[in-house]
Protein backbone atom coordinates (compact mmCIF):
# COMPACT_ATOMS: atom_id res chain seq x y z
CA UNK A 1 0.00 0.00 0.00
CA UNK A 2 2.78 2.43 1.02
CA UNK A 3 4.79 1.41 -2.03
CA UNK A 4 1.75 2.01 -4.22
CA UNK A 5 1.28 5.53 -2.81
CA UNK A 6 4.99 6.26 -3.27
CA UNK A 7 4.90 5.11 -6.90
CA UNK A 8 1.75 7.13 -7.59
CA UNK A 9 3.39 10.27 -6.17
CA UNK A 10 6.48 9.56 -8.30
CA UNK A 11 4.32 9.45 -11.45
CA UNK A 12 2.51 12.68 -10.45
CA UNK A 13 5.82 14.52 -10.03
CA UNK A 14 7.19 13.06 -13.25
CA UNK A 15 4.06 14.22 -15.07
CA UNK A 16 4.46 17.69 -13.52
CA UNK A 17 8.13 17.76 -14.52
CA UNK A 18 7.41 16.78 -18.13
CA UNK A 19 4.58 19.30 -18.40
CA UNK A 20 6.80 22.11 -17.18
CA UNK A 21 9.62 20.87 -19.47
CA UNK A 22 7.20 21.11 -22.42
CA UNK A 23 6.33 24.71 -21.62
CA UNK A 24 9.96 25.65 -21.05
CA UNK A 25 10.84 24.75 -24.63
CA UNK A 26 9.67 28.26 -25.45
CA UNK A 27 11.42 30.41 -22.84
CA UNK A 28 9.74 33.71 -23.79
CA UNK A 29 6.18 32.30 -23.71
CA UNK A 30 6.93 30.48 -20.47
CA UNK A 31 8.23 33.55 -18.65
CA UNK A 32 5.71 35.99 -20.12
CA UNK A 33 2.82 33.70 -19.13
CA UNK A 34 3.96 33.81 -15.52
CA UNK A 35 4.80 37.51 -15.52
CA UNK A 36 1.53 38.60 -17.13
CA UNK A 37 -0.47 36.57 -14.64
CA UNK A 38 1.27 38.38 -11.77
CA UNK A 39 0.51 41.73 -13.45
CA UNK A 40 -3.07 40.69 -14.15
CA UNK A 41 -3.63 39.81 -10.49
CA UNK A 42 -1.99 43.05 -9.35
CA UNK A 43 -4.46 45.08 -11.40
CA UNK A 44 -7.34 43.87 -9.23
CA UNK A 45 -5.81 45.51 -6.17
CA UNK A 46 -6.49 48.91 -7.78
CA UNK A 47 -10.26 48.47 -7.41
CA UNK A 48 -9.77 47.77 -3.70
CA UNK A 49 -7.57 50.86 -3.31
CA UNK A 50 -10.44 52.90 -4.80
CA UNK A 51 -13.00 51.23 -2.51
CA UNK A 52 -10.90 51.83 0.60
CA UNK A 53 -10.54 55.50 -0.30
CA UNK A 54 -14.33 55.69 0.13
CA UNK A 55 -14.73 53.41 3.16
CA UNK A 56 -12.34 52.51 5.98
CA UNK A 57 -13.42 48.89 6.36
CA UNK A 58 -15.25 46.41 4.17
CA UNK A 59 -16.65 43.32 5.88
CA UNK A 60 -14.28 43.99 8.80
CA UNK A 61 -11.23 44.00 6.50
CA UNK A 62 -8.79 46.81 5.81
CA UNK A 63 -6.49 46.89 2.77
CA UNK A 64 -3.96 44.76 4.66
CA UNK A 65 -6.37 41.85 5.14
CA UNK A 66 -7.62 42.17 1.57
CA UNK A 67 -4.06 41.65 0.36
CA UNK A 68 -3.83 38.51 2.49
CA UNK A 69 -7.19 37.34 1.10
CA UNK A 70 -5.87 37.86 -2.43
CA UNK A 71 -2.72 35.99 -1.52
CA UNK A 72 -4.70 32.97 -0.33
CA UNK A 73 -7.14 33.14 -3.28
CA UNK A 74 -4.43 33.48 -5.89
CA UNK A 75 -2.15 30.90 -4.26
CA UNK A 76 -4.82 28.21 -3.81
CA UNK A 77 -6.07 28.67 -7.35
CA UNK A 78 -2.50 28.64 -8.68
CA UNK A 79 -1.54 25.48 -6.83
CA UNK A 80 -4.69 23.66 -7.93
CA UNK A 81 -4.05 24.61 -11.56
CA UNK A 82 -0.36 23.65 -11.42
CA UNK A 83 -0.86 20.19 -9.95
CA UNK A 84 -4.49 19.32 -10.66
CA UNK A 85 -5.22 21.34 -13.80
CA UNK A 86 -7.28 18.65 -15.46
CA UNK A 87 -9.72 18.49 -12.53
CA UNK A 88 -11.19 21.57 -14.22
CA UNK A 89 -11.38 19.73 -17.57
CA UNK A 90 -12.58 16.38 -16.31
CA UNK A 91 -15.90 16.88 -18.14
CA UNK A 92 -14.09 16.97 -21.47
CA UNK A 93 -12.08 13.84 -20.63
CA UNK A 94 -15.31 12.03 -19.74
CA UNK A 95 -17.38 13.20 -22.70
CA UNK A 96 -14.69 12.65 -25.31
CA UNK A 97 -13.55 9.27 -24.01
CA UNK A 98 -10.10 10.52 -23.06
CA UNK A 99 -9.96 8.51 -19.84
CA UNK A 100 -9.06 5.37 -21.82
CA UNK A 101 -5.34 6.16 -21.65
CA UNK A 102 -5.42 6.27 -17.85
CA UNK A 103 -7.70 3.25 -17.51
CA UNK A 104 -5.19 0.89 -19.10
CA UNK A 105 -2.43 1.99 -16.73
CA UNK A 106 -1.83 0.38 -13.33
CA UNK A 107 -2.25 3.63 -11.48
CA UNK A 108 -5.12 5.50 -9.85
CA UNK A 109 -7.22 6.71 -12.79
CA UNK A 110 -8.58 9.74 -10.99
CA UNK A 111 -5.20 11.05 -9.81
CA UNK A 112 -3.46 10.22 -13.09
CA UNK A 113 -6.15 12.04 -15.08
CA UNK A 114 -6.35 15.24 -13.02
CA UNK A 115 -2.57 15.60 -12.71
CA UNK A 116 -1.83 14.97 -16.39
CA UNK A 117 -1.58 18.65 -17.32
CA UNK A 118 -0.18 21.87 -15.87
CA UNK A 119 -1.27 25.45 -16.46
CA UNK A 120 1.92 27.44 -16.60
CA UNK A 121 0.26 30.82 -15.95
CA UNK A 122 -0.79 29.35 -12.59
CA UNK A 123 2.85 29.55 -11.49
CA UNK A 124 2.28 33.33 -11.71
CA UNK A 125 -0.77 32.95 -9.45
CA UNK A 126 1.26 31.01 -6.90
CA UNK A 127 4.14 33.51 -6.93
CA UNK A 128 1.62 36.36 -6.60
CA UNK A 129 0.14 34.59 -3.56
CA UNK A 130 3.50 34.69 -1.78
CA UNK A 131 4.14 38.31 -2.86
CA UNK A 132 0.84 39.20 -1.14
CA UNK A 133 1.97 37.37 2.00
CA UNK A 134 5.19 39.36 2.06
CA UNK A 135 3.25 42.61 1.61
CA UNK A 136 0.86 41.57 4.42
CA UNK A 137 3.74 40.83 6.74
CA UNK A 138 5.61 37.57 6.86
CA UNK A 139 6.59 35.74 10.04
CA UNK A 140 7.61 32.10 10.43
CA UNK A 141 4.14 31.28 11.81
CA UNK A 142 2.36 33.14 8.99
CA UNK A 143 4.54 31.52 6.35
CA UNK A 144 3.92 28.00 7.64
CA UNK A 145 0.17 28.55 8.07
CA UNK A 146 -0.08 30.23 4.66
CA UNK A 147 1.69 27.30 2.97
CA UNK A 148 -0.47 24.71 4.75
CA UNK A 149 -3.62 26.60 3.77
CA UNK A 150 -2.48 26.95 0.16
CA UNK A 151 -2.06 23.19 -0.04
CA UNK A 152 -5.39 22.54 1.69
CA UNK A 153 -7.18 25.22 -0.37
CA UNK A 154 -5.64 23.98 -3.60
CA UNK A 155 -6.83 20.46 -2.84
CA UNK A 156 -10.34 21.70 -1.87
CA UNK A 157 -10.58 23.76 -5.08
CA UNK A 158 -9.45 20.84 -7.25
CA UNK A 159 -11.65 18.31 -5.43
CA UNK A 160 -14.67 20.59 -5.83
CA UNK A 161 -13.90 21.10 -9.54
CA UNK A 162 -13.60 17.30 -9.93
CA UNK A 163 -16.93 16.64 -8.21
CA UNK A 164 -18.87 19.12 -10.36
CA UNK A 165 -17.10 17.98 -13.53
CA UNK A 166 -18.11 14.39 -12.76
CA UNK A 167 -21.66 15.51 -13.60
CA UNK A 168 -20.72 14.58 -17.17
CA UNK A 169 -20.93 10.92 -16.19
CA UNK A 170 -24.67 11.42 -15.64
CA UNK A 171 -25.78 14.39 -17.74
CA UNK A 172 -25.14 15.47 -21.31
CA UNK A 173 -23.14 18.69 -21.54
CA UNK A 174 -22.22 18.51 -17.86
CA UNK A 175 -19.35 20.89 -18.63
CA UNK A 176 -21.71 23.92 -18.56
CA UNK A 177 -22.87 22.99 -15.07
CA UNK A 178 -19.30 22.31 -13.95
CA UNK A 179 -17.90 25.55 -15.37
CA UNK A 180 -20.66 27.62 -13.73
CA UNK A 181 -20.05 26.14 -10.27
CA UNK A 182 -16.25 26.20 -10.56
CA UNK A 183 -16.40 29.86 -11.58
CA UNK A 184 -18.59 30.75 -8.59
CA UNK A 185 -15.97 29.18 -6.34
CA UNK A 186 -13.18 31.20 -7.97
CA UNK A 187 -15.09 34.49 -8.38
CA UNK A 188 -16.18 34.67 -4.75
CA UNK A 189 -12.76 33.75 -3.40
CA UNK A 190 -11.52 37.36 -3.48
CA UNK A 191 -14.27 38.99 -1.41
CA UNK A 192 -14.29 39.18 2.41
CA UNK A 193 -16.55 36.43 3.74
CA UNK A 194 -18.27 38.79 6.16
CA UNK A 195 -19.97 40.89 3.48
CA UNK A 196 -22.38 37.99 2.79
CA UNK A 197 -25.61 37.32 4.68
CA UNK A 198 -26.08 34.13 6.75
CA UNK A 199 -27.86 32.12 4.02
CA UNK A 200 -25.10 32.77 1.49
CA UNK A 201 -22.44 32.06 4.13
CA UNK A 202 -23.96 28.64 4.83
CA UNK A 203 -23.79 27.95 1.11
CA UNK A 204 -20.13 29.01 1.00
CA UNK A 205 -19.20 26.78 3.92
CA UNK A 206 -20.99 23.70 2.58
CA UNK A 207 -22.11 23.27 -1.04
CA UNK A 208 -19.60 25.68 -2.60
CA UNK A 209 -16.75 25.50 -0.07
CA UNK A 210 -14.99 28.77 -0.85
CA UNK A 211 -15.38 29.65 2.84
CA UNK A 212 -13.21 26.69 3.83
CA UNK A 213 -10.63 27.12 1.11
CA UNK A 214 -10.29 30.91 1.46
CA UNK A 215 -12.28 32.81 4.10
CA UNK A 216 -11.51 30.62 7.12
CA UNK A 217 -7.77 30.32 6.31
CA UNK A 218 -7.52 34.14 6.15
CA UNK A 219 -9.31 34.43 9.51
CA UNK A 220 -7.02 31.78 10.99
CA UNK A 221 -3.83 33.53 9.84
CA UNK A 222 -5.09 36.82 11.30
CA UNK A 223 -6.27 35.25 14.60
CA UNK A 224 -5.04 31.70 15.04
CA UNK A 225 -7.74 29.34 16.23
CA UNK A 226 -7.03 25.62 16.57
CA UNK A 227 -10.65 24.61 15.96
CA UNK A 228 -10.68 26.48 12.64
CA UNK A 229 -7.34 24.91 11.69
CA UNK A 230 -8.57 21.39 12.42
CA UNK A 231 -11.83 22.10 10.61
CA UNK A 232 -9.99 23.24 7.44
CA UNK A 233 -7.71 20.18 7.42
CA UNK A 234 -10.59 17.85 8.28
CA UNK A 235 -12.80 19.27 5.55
CA UNK A 236 -9.94 18.85 3.04
CA UNK A 237 -9.88 15.15 3.90
CA UNK A 238 -13.66 14.87 3.63
CA UNK A 239 -13.92 16.57 0.22
CA UNK A 240 -11.08 14.41 -1.16
CA UNK A 241 -12.93 11.26 -0.08
CA UNK A 242 -16.15 12.59 -1.65
CA UNK A 243 -14.33 13.46 -4.91
CA UNK A 244 -12.89 9.93 -5.16
CA UNK A 245 -16.27 8.38 -4.34
CA UNK A 246 -18.15 10.46 -6.94
CA UNK A 247 -15.52 9.80 -9.61
CA UNK A 248 -15.49 6.02 -9.14
CA UNK A 249 -19.29 5.92 -8.89
CA UNK A 250 -19.46 7.78 -12.19
CA UNK A 251 -16.70 5.77 -13.83
CA UNK A 252 -19.04 2.77 -13.96
CA UNK A 253 -21.12 4.83 -16.39
CA UNK A 254 -18.14 5.85 -18.53
CA UNK A 255 -18.86 5.03 -22.15
CA UNK A 256 -15.53 5.96 -23.78
CA UNK A 257 -15.66 7.00 -27.45
CA UNK A 258 -14.00 6.36 -30.75
CA UNK A 259 -13.02 9.96 -31.38
CA UNK A 260 -9.55 10.30 -32.84
CA UNK A 261 -7.30 12.16 -30.49
CA UNK A 262 -3.76 12.48 -29.28
CA UNK A 263 -2.07 13.23 -26.01
CA UNK A 264 -0.43 16.64 -26.25
Amino acid at each position, binding site marked *: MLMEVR*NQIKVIFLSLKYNIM*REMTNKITFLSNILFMILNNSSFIIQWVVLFSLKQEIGGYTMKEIILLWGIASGTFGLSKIVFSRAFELSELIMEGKLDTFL*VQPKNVFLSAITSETKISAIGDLIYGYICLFVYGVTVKNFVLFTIFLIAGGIITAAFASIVNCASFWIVKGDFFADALSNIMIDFATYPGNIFKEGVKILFYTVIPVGLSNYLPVETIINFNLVNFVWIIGFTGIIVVVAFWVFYKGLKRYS*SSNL*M*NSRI
Partner: protein
Amino acid sequence: MNIIEVKNLSKTFKIKEKEKGIKGSIKSIVKPRYKTIKAVNDISFSVEKGEMLAFIGPNGAGKSTTIKMLTGILYPTSGEIMVNGINPAKQRKKLAYKIGTVFGQKEQLWTHLTPYDNFKFFGAIYDIQNNEIEDRIEELSKTFELESFINTPVRNLSLGQRIRCEMVAALIHKPEILFLDEPTIGLDPVVKKNIRKLIRKMNKELGTTIFLTSHDVGDIEKLCKRVIIVNKGKIIMDDTIKNLKSNKPLEDIITEIYQEATI
Protein backbone atom coordinates in the same frame (compact mmCIF):
# COMPACT_ATOMS: atom_id res chain seq x y z
CA MET B 1 -4.40 -23.05 -21.71
CA ASN B 2 -6.90 -20.25 -22.17
CA ILE B 3 -5.60 -16.78 -21.39
CA ILE B 4 -8.88 -15.00 -22.21
CA GLU B 5 -12.28 -16.40 -21.28
CA VAL B 6 -15.49 -14.58 -22.08
CA LYS B 7 -18.91 -15.92 -21.13
CA ASN B 8 -22.28 -14.38 -22.09
CA LEU B 9 -20.79 -10.90 -22.26
CA SER B 10 -23.16 -8.00 -22.96
CA LYS B 11 -22.87 -4.24 -22.95
CA THR B 12 -25.76 -1.84 -23.42
CA PHE B 13 -25.68 1.91 -23.84
CA LYS B 14 -28.56 4.27 -23.14
CA ILE B 15 -28.78 6.85 -25.93
CA LYS B 16 -30.94 9.98 -25.88
CA GLU B 17 -33.19 10.26 -28.92
CA LYS B 18 -34.14 13.60 -30.38
CA GLU B 19 -36.72 14.45 -33.02
CA LYS B 20 -35.58 16.76 -35.80
CA GLY B 21 -35.58 20.55 -35.65
CA ILE B 22 -35.87 23.05 -32.83
CA LYS B 23 -39.23 21.60 -31.76
CA GLY B 24 -37.52 18.26 -31.26
CA SER B 25 -34.78 19.93 -29.20
CA ILE B 26 -37.34 21.57 -26.87
CA LYS B 27 -39.28 18.31 -26.60
CA SER B 28 -36.11 16.41 -25.68
CA ILE B 29 -35.54 18.82 -22.76
CA VAL B 30 -39.14 18.63 -21.47
CA LYS B 31 -39.69 14.94 -22.08
CA PRO B 32 -36.45 13.18 -22.98
CA ARG B 33 -36.71 9.84 -24.76
CA TYR B 34 -34.05 7.20 -24.54
CA LYS B 35 -33.31 4.06 -26.45
CA THR B 36 -31.12 1.19 -25.38
CA ILE B 37 -28.47 -0.09 -27.75
CA LYS B 38 -26.92 -3.50 -27.27
CA ALA B 39 -23.35 -2.88 -28.45
CA VAL B 40 -22.29 -6.36 -27.36
CA ASN B 41 -24.97 -9.01 -27.12
CA ASP B 42 -24.31 -12.20 -25.19
CA ILE B 43 -20.98 -13.26 -26.68
CA SER B 44 -18.76 -16.09 -25.47
CA PHE B 45 -15.30 -17.10 -26.66
CA SER B 46 -11.85 -18.00 -25.42
CA VAL B 47 -8.29 -17.30 -26.58
CA GLU B 48 -5.34 -19.60 -25.99
CA LYS B 49 -2.04 -18.42 -24.57
CA GLY B 50 0.32 -17.41 -27.39
CA GLU B 51 -2.48 -17.30 -29.96
CA MET B 52 -2.86 -14.51 -32.54
CA LEU B 53 -6.57 -13.85 -32.92
CA ALA B 54 -8.32 -11.50 -35.32
CA PHE B 55 -11.50 -10.03 -33.87
CA ILE B 56 -13.19 -8.33 -36.78
CA GLY B 57 -16.50 -6.94 -37.97
CA PRO B 58 -18.05 -3.98 -39.77
CA ASN B 59 -18.15 -0.51 -38.19
CA GLY B 60 -20.34 -0.45 -35.09
CA ALA B 61 -20.21 -4.25 -34.73
CA GLY B 62 -19.00 -4.09 -31.11
CA LYS B 63 -15.29 -4.84 -31.60
CA SER B 64 -13.91 -1.82 -29.78
CA THR B 65 -16.52 -2.13 -27.02
CA THR B 66 -15.41 -5.74 -26.47
CA ILE B 67 -11.72 -4.78 -26.39
CA LYS B 68 -12.52 -1.99 -23.95
CA MET B 69 -14.29 -4.43 -21.64
CA LEU B 70 -11.40 -6.90 -21.89
CA THR B 71 -8.90 -4.19 -20.94
CA GLY B 72 -10.97 -2.77 -18.06
CA ILE B 73 -11.88 0.50 -19.76
CA LEU B 74 -15.61 -0.28 -19.79
CA TYR B 75 -17.72 -2.15 -17.26
CA PRO B 76 -19.78 -4.96 -18.77
CA THR B 77 -23.56 -4.81 -18.34
CA SER B 78 -23.61 -8.57 -17.79
CA GLY B 79 -21.49 -11.66 -18.32
CA GLU B 80 -18.07 -12.80 -17.21
CA ILE B 81 -14.56 -11.93 -18.37
CA MET B 82 -11.30 -13.43 -17.19
CA VAL B 83 -8.05 -12.18 -18.71
CA ASN B 84 -4.99 -14.04 -17.48
CA GLY B 85 -7.10 -15.16 -14.52
CA ILE B 86 -8.04 -11.56 -13.65
CA ASN B 87 -11.48 -9.94 -13.77
CA PRO B 88 -10.90 -6.60 -15.57
CA ALA B 89 -13.90 -4.89 -13.97
CA LYS B 90 -12.75 -5.75 -10.45
CA GLN B 91 -8.94 -5.79 -10.70
CA ARG B 92 -8.17 -3.23 -13.37
CA LYS B 93 -4.79 -2.18 -11.95
CA LYS B 94 -3.58 -5.76 -11.51
CA LEU B 95 -4.60 -6.52 -15.08
CA ALA B 96 -2.81 -3.44 -16.44
CA TYR B 97 0.57 -4.98 -15.50
CA LYS B 98 -0.24 -8.02 -17.65
CA ILE B 99 -1.60 -6.37 -20.78
CA GLY B 100 -0.47 -3.86 -23.37
CA THR B 101 -2.72 -1.81 -25.61
CA VAL B 102 -2.23 -0.03 -28.90
CA PHE B 103 -5.20 1.94 -30.18
CA GLY B 104 -4.36 3.08 -33.69
CA GLN B 105 -6.80 5.97 -33.37
CA LYS B 106 -5.71 7.12 -29.93
CA GLU B 107 -2.18 8.05 -29.04
CA GLN B 108 -0.86 7.26 -25.61
CA LEU B 109 2.46 9.01 -26.10
CA TRP B 110 3.17 12.60 -25.09
CA THR B 111 3.80 14.29 -28.40
CA HIS B 112 6.11 17.00 -27.06
CA LEU B 113 8.45 14.44 -25.47
CA THR B 114 10.98 12.24 -27.21
CA PRO B 115 10.24 8.49 -27.43
CA TYR B 116 13.03 7.95 -24.88
CA ASP B 117 11.40 10.28 -22.31
CA ASN B 118 8.02 8.70 -23.03
CA PHE B 119 9.41 5.23 -22.36
CA LYS B 120 10.99 6.44 -19.12
CA PHE B 121 7.60 7.83 -18.10
CA PHE B 122 5.83 4.58 -18.97
CA GLY B 123 8.53 2.72 -17.03
CA ALA B 124 7.62 4.77 -13.94
CA ILE B 125 3.94 4.04 -14.52
CA TYR B 126 4.70 0.32 -14.45
CA ASP B 127 7.04 0.67 -11.43
CA ILE B 128 10.12 -0.47 -13.37
CA GLN B 129 13.46 0.34 -11.74
CA ASN B 130 15.70 2.89 -13.50
CA ASN B 131 18.51 0.49 -14.50
CA GLU B 132 15.99 -2.09 -15.67
CA ILE B 133 14.11 0.45 -17.82
CA GLU B 134 17.35 1.53 -19.57
CA ASP B 135 18.03 -2.09 -20.58
CA ARG B 136 14.44 -2.56 -21.71
CA ILE B 137 14.49 0.63 -23.83
CA GLU B 138 17.74 -0.46 -25.46
CA GLU B 139 16.40 -3.94 -26.18
CA LEU B 140 13.09 -2.73 -27.62
CA SER B 141 14.57 0.11 -29.62
CA LYS B 142 16.82 -2.43 -31.32
CA THR B 143 13.93 -4.80 -32.05
CA PHE B 144 11.71 -1.99 -33.37
CA GLU B 145 14.59 -0.10 -35.00
CA LEU B 146 14.03 3.19 -33.18
CA GLU B 147 17.70 4.14 -32.67
CA SER B 148 17.74 6.88 -35.32
CA PHE B 149 14.79 8.83 -33.89
CA ILE B 150 14.59 7.85 -30.21
CA ASN B 151 15.61 11.39 -29.20
CA THR B 152 13.33 13.24 -31.63
CA PRO B 153 10.08 14.68 -30.21
CA VAL B 154 7.13 12.41 -31.08
CA ARG B 155 5.34 15.27 -32.84
CA ASN B 156 8.11 15.32 -35.46
CA LEU B 157 7.90 11.61 -36.26
CA SER B 158 6.13 10.01 -39.20
CA LEU B 159 2.97 7.98 -38.54
CA GLY B 160 4.85 4.70 -39.01
CA GLN B 161 7.56 5.74 -36.57
CA ARG B 162 4.92 6.83 -34.06
CA ILE B 163 3.08 3.50 -34.22
CA ARG B 164 6.36 1.68 -33.63
CA CYS B 165 6.93 3.88 -30.58
CA GLU B 166 3.35 3.24 -29.41
CA MET B 167 4.07 -0.48 -29.61
CA VAL B 168 7.29 -0.15 -27.63
CA ALA B 169 5.42 1.87 -24.98
CA ALA B 170 2.81 -0.89 -24.83
CA LEU B 171 5.52 -3.55 -24.45
CA ILE B 172 7.75 -1.78 -21.95
CA HIS B 173 6.44 -3.85 -19.02
CA LYS B 174 6.61 -7.20 -20.87
CA PRO B 175 2.86 -7.79 -21.12
CA GLU B 176 1.55 -11.28 -21.72
CA ILE B 177 -1.29 -10.10 -23.94
CA LEU B 178 -1.24 -7.30 -26.46
CA PHE B 179 -4.52 -5.73 -27.59
CA LEU B 180 -4.16 -4.07 -30.96
CA ASP B 181 -7.07 -1.96 -32.17
CA GLU B 182 -6.47 -1.00 -35.81
CA PRO B 183 -2.69 -0.78 -35.39
CA THR B 184 -1.98 -0.21 -39.09
CA ILE B 185 -4.65 2.42 -39.77
CA GLY B 186 -3.34 5.11 -42.13
CA LEU B 187 0.01 3.44 -42.74
CA ASP B 188 1.58 2.88 -46.14
CA PRO B 189 2.07 -0.73 -47.39
CA VAL B 190 5.80 -0.82 -46.58
CA VAL B 191 5.30 0.34 -42.99
CA LYS B 192 2.33 -2.04 -42.60
CA LYS B 193 4.53 -4.92 -43.70
CA ASN B 194 7.20 -3.87 -41.24
CA ILE B 195 4.73 -3.59 -38.35
CA ARG B 196 3.31 -7.04 -39.13
CA LYS B 197 6.82 -8.49 -39.15
CA LEU B 198 7.44 -7.01 -35.72
CA ILE B 199 4.15 -8.32 -34.31
CA ARG B 200 4.98 -11.82 -35.58
CA LYS B 201 8.47 -11.59 -34.09
CA MET B 202 7.05 -10.53 -30.73
CA ASN B 203 4.59 -13.41 -30.74
CA LYS B 204 7.25 -15.94 -31.70
CA GLU B 205 10.09 -14.76 -29.48
CA LEU B 206 8.20 -13.59 -26.40
CA GLY B 207 5.10 -15.77 -26.69
CA THR B 208 2.88 -12.67 -26.44
CA THR B 209 -0.80 -13.37 -27.09
CA ILE B 210 -2.13 -11.00 -29.76
CA PHE B 211 -5.76 -9.85 -29.82
CA LEU B 212 -6.17 -7.88 -33.01
CA THR B 213 -8.99 -5.85 -34.50
CA SER B 214 -8.47 -4.46 -37.95
CA HIS B 215 -10.31 -3.62 -41.14
CA ASP B 216 -7.19 -4.49 -43.07
CA VAL B 217 -7.50 -7.99 -44.50
CA GLY B 218 -3.72 -8.07 -44.91
CA ASP B 219 -3.26 -7.78 -41.13
CA ILE B 220 -5.64 -10.68 -40.55
CA GLU B 221 -4.28 -12.91 -43.29
CA LYS B 222 -0.62 -12.30 -42.53
CA LEU B 223 -0.82 -12.48 -38.76
CA CYS B 224 -3.66 -14.65 -37.49
CA LYS B 225 -4.62 -18.28 -37.69
CA ARG B 226 -8.06 -17.80 -36.20
CA VAL B 227 -10.75 -15.18 -36.79
CA ILE B 228 -13.87 -14.18 -34.86
CA ILE B 229 -16.36 -12.11 -36.85
CA VAL B 230 -18.87 -10.00 -34.95
CA ASN B 231 -21.84 -8.07 -36.23
CA LYS B 232 -24.49 -6.12 -34.33
CA GLY B 233 -22.89 -7.21 -31.09
CA LYS B 234 -23.08 -10.95 -31.82
CA ILE B 235 -20.48 -13.47 -32.91
CA ILE B 236 -21.44 -14.66 -36.37
CA MET B 237 -18.35 -16.74 -37.07
CA ASP B 238 -15.47 -18.25 -35.08
CA ASP B 239 -13.18 -20.27 -37.31
CA THR B 240 -9.65 -20.69 -38.62
CA ILE B 241 -8.44 -18.56 -41.51
CA LYS B 242 -7.60 -21.82 -43.30
CA ASN B 243 -11.23 -23.00 -43.13
CA LEU B 244 -12.50 -19.59 -44.17
CA LYS B 245 -10.35 -19.43 -47.27
CA SER B 246 -11.68 -21.00 -50.47
CA ASN B 247 -10.67 -20.15 -53.98
CA LYS B 248 -11.72 -16.51 -53.44
CA PRO B 249 -9.59 -13.76 -51.91
CA LEU B 250 -10.12 -13.41 -48.15
CA GLU B 251 -11.30 -9.81 -48.56
CA ASP B 252 -14.21 -10.94 -50.77
CA ILE B 253 -15.16 -13.71 -48.35
CA ILE B 254 -15.22 -11.34 -45.39
CA THR B 255 -17.21 -8.74 -47.36
CA GLU B 256 -19.78 -11.41 -48.26
CA ILE B 257 -20.09 -12.47 -44.61
CA TYR B 258 -20.59 -8.83 -43.55
CA GLN B 259 -23.23 -8.31 -46.26
CA GLU B 260 -25.13 -11.49 -45.40
CA ALA B 261 -25.15 -10.54 -41.72
CA THR B 262 -26.45 -7.04 -42.51
CA ILE B 263 -29.33 -8.45 -44.57
